[in-house]
């Protein structure tokens, strides 16, 4: 194994004889591009992009969040939902749906995840310009599998978590955590380039965008 390593590295070095030995290995960070592109109010842009991806979106005031969660689960007919065990219990104050907590220490079985009616999570950051919600595996977002296997994902995004552009989001995220960037529900365009929502991931993504009370 080490011989191949040395062989490949030796080939790389032999291929780069044109590079001056004193050329710096570290590249100064310049970032000549913009952090965002002035497309408008971040929350409005995010809402527009999410709708463009066929996600369901609702702007909700903070003091109505528990009612909105209850209504969303009711509309969906979701009787049992997976939840990361660090999620805010207050969000569920008005729903009768059963919660199945999941954590890294006590994960739900895959078959059980496949049977629940949906999953409810928070997020780490959301990017307005691209309509992207990023999950970083934090206690209120949970393991990657829980937002993947159920067919319905209800995600709560707080207004202060929304940034305009991709660079701001990348700066806030910790690469040591496993990240999932979600831009709309699962989709494919493999058949004559017709977009079809929902192949393997959740077919329905619903976002509650929480304005400060």
């Amino acid at each position: 194994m080490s011989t191949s390593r040395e062989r490949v590295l030796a080939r790389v070095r032999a291929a780069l004889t044109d590079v001056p030995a004193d050329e710096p290995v570290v590249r100064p960070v310049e970032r000549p591009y913009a952090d965002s592109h002035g497309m408008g109010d971040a929350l409005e842009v995010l809402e527009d992009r999410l709708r463009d991806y066929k996600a369901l979106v609702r702007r909700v005031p903070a003091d109505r969040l528990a009612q909105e969660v209850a209504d969303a689960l009711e509309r969906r007919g979701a009787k049992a939902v997976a939840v990361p065990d660090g999620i805010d219990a207050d969000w569920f104050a008005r729903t009768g749906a059963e919660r199945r907590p999941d954590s890294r220490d006590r994960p739900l079985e895959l078959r059980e995840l496949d049977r629940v009616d949906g999953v409810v999570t928070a997020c780490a950051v959301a990017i307005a310009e691209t309509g992207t919600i990023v999950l970083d595996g934090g206690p209120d977002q949970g393991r990657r599998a829980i937002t993947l296997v159920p067919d319905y994902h209800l995600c709560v995004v707080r207004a202060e978590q929304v940034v305009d552009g991709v660079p701001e989001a990348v700066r806030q995220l910790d690469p040591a955590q496993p990240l999932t960037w979600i831009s709309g529900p699962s989709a494919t365009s493999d058949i004559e380039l017709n977009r079809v929502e929902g192949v393997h991931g959740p077919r329905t993504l619903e976002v509650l965008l929480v304005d400060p009370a």
Partner: protein
Amino acid sequence: MSATFLGIPPFPEAAHEAVNDSRLRHNLRKATHTIRDKRASVVTELEDDWERLRSEGAAIKNHTLRHLDHYLEQLEASVERAGGHVHWAADAAEANAIVTRLVQATGETDVVKVKSMATQEIELNNALAEAGITAYETDLAELIVQLGDDLPSHILVPAIHLGRSQIREIFLDQMAEWGVPAPAGLTDDPRALAEAARVHLRERFLRTRTAISGANFAVADSGTLVVLESEGNGRMCLTLPETLISVVGIEKIVPTWADLEVFMQTLPRSSTGERMNPYTSTWTGVTPGDGPQEFHLVLLDNGRTDVLADTVGRQALRCIRCSACLNTCPVYERTGGHAYGSVYPGPIGAILTPQLRGMSSEVDEALPYASSLCGACYEVCPVAIDIPEVLVHLREEVAAGPGHLGEKAMMKGAEAVFGSSRALDAAQRAAGAARNLVPRHLPGMAGAWTDTRDLPDVPAESFRQWWNKHEKGQS
């Protein structure tokens, strides 16, 4: 055993057949024009910033390539620090052997795969099959290609050459042999077809304990791997199994986590014409309690260091496999991907494949000529690869090689004539005198040229003769 590109005729022959396939041309035209228009609109949305992101992307990749040994070692250390294992493969055979050994160590005989160009390049599925391991493709288009015992024809949408009714037939004929059968009464509605794929693959995802992927990016400073996708099959493979093996070309490295802010803006927009692809997964080594608990990274050379050694051709390694160059190419639009005889079709394939494989076969010698040099590919490339420049550079190499003796003799003769004023004058006078004897159709090898073109009339006198007669004495 799946189909292979081996034995496919050189581009001119393969293209000749392809352009006569009207259904293929219809599918391709519709598909490439659709993506082309979508791309243009989301790129325009970023205004001037697009060019800045484009040149920054090119600069990051160039810098990485110029210090690739450093970044490879840094990536290795970062991945191992995060609990992953790193393997080095000098060529396809070695990569296949490593992956086979790793799968065998899990005791599994079934693996699920995320769409990956690198594993297609090394024909991993065939190597695994020989070891009694079945690799299941899970990307919808790759699944269609695998079930149909076909070959991919596009980097991003490998089944772009097939229409919905063909896909329906493949599902009805083949799904049962591979697992959950297609539902009775399956229609050719894309929704129904996607649903059939969902049902077919779900059992497989929930059951399979080993997965194989590639990666779009490997971040040296953090040890993070990144996969962009749409369907969620990637997330399934990357998170549900116990063991994950990723085969990654050594050119996929970017130095820092922050560099992703450039490519996460340029890749989706160039590729599918979306502001962002539906799902992106990033992982760094292993995370206890979340996702695969064993992670192997196989770093693949397989000719990349030969490309790196060519200071003109090196830029091809900047490629982030967005496929914008395919979608904009007038040649690809008419011939489709199979004619290129390579897993990398289109303009990027025409420069990458002959460099990776070395120009020792007729197929690879023909590829640098599979272009009209119109430059559209360069215009749309998000990392500004000057594909026409590399094409011309590779043509020079082909011309300097042993082939094309007749052409070389002609060029030698032309050099002698054009190099001497007296020889040129004599040749032109002779041509003028014999002008009525020149046939409409040239004999021998040159006949192919006049099959489709009119030979220009030879003038009675040359410009030089006319000039000498009329203008010389006047000034």
